[in-house]
């Protein structure tokens, strides 16, 4: 909690410092920055609050650990397909996802499942409202559509190169 506040303070201070510096050196440019910050905040605050609520609800009702346990049990193609789709719904950053995937491997999941899991997690369904607002539903749809086969490809090719080393 303390480090959370510290990081928050650093970001705010850093942003404020840049903003202040620009306004000091060139008031006209400082004005542009103020407008950009103000307008974007006004446009997005509602979506951002909604997304944050989604993330909280999702974490509690569908904990990532449950999903991992569920995926670890499945093997073969079924496991691979699940690993390429289910993680789309999980939030978090690489810092939280990587340890989760590692426990998956420890429990005996295939490397392909691990690789696919990480890739599919980039789907970021909880952030979908933000994506649609800023980039349009077409972009969001194409991105999600391409991500699922990508997860399969990354998973399988990763497994190939990792297994090659295991053989003499």
């Amino acid at each position: 909690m303390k480090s959370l506040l510290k990081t928050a303070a650093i970001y705010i201070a850093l942003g404020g410092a840049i903003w202040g510096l620009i306004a000091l050196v060139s008031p006209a440019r400082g004005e542009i920055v103020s407008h950009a910050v103000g307008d974007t905040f006004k446009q997005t605050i509602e979506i951002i609050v909604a997304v944050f609520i989604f993330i909280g609800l999702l974490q509690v009702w569908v904990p990532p650990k449950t999903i991992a346990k569920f995926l670890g049990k499945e093997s073969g193609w079924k496991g691979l397909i699940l690993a390429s789709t289910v993680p789309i719904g999980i939030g978090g950053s690489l810092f939280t996802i990587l340890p989760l995937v590692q426990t998956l491997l420890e429990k005996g999941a295939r490397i392909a499942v691990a690789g696919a899991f990480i890739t599919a997690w980039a789907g970021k369904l909880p952030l979908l409202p933000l994506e649609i607002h800023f980039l349009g539903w077409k972009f969001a749809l194409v991105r999600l559509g391409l991500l699922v086969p990508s997860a399969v490809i990354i998973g399988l090719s990763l497994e190939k190169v990792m297994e090659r080393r295991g053989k003499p």
Partner: protein
Amino acid sequence: MVAGVLLALSTVRDRKKTRAALIISGKVTLQVLPVLFFIFVLMGTIEAFVSKDTIAHLLGTGSGVPGILLAETVGSVALIEPAAVFPFSGYLRTSGASYGAIFGFVLAAILIGIATLPLEIKLFGPRFTLFRNVFTFILILLLALLVGMIL
């Protein structure tokens, strides 16, 4: 709106869980909002100093493979919270960046991270880390070209 309905539903089903969810939401807010503020300042700064023509030239539809590579590299290096990726991408889009370049930036920012490399190597070993990141980088490039053609 939808979030409010879900929240109400969750409260009816289980008060304790809903409270836990709101605590998580609060933490996420504390974690992400300052980063967003920083990103917004950065967007304003770019707007104040870099003309839209420059962005359109570097990342626009005519920028091709070099434009995508640039977007991917920036995405990989940038220490950016996933939630901040989309607002920044939207800004790039209105500044004239192509959908292909934006696709490259978004996925590289989420999936490839200089900051997470040490953790990934520690957990999975150097070989896994190297190949995962390289494969991902190449695949994103190919898909970005495809996206550029579709959208």
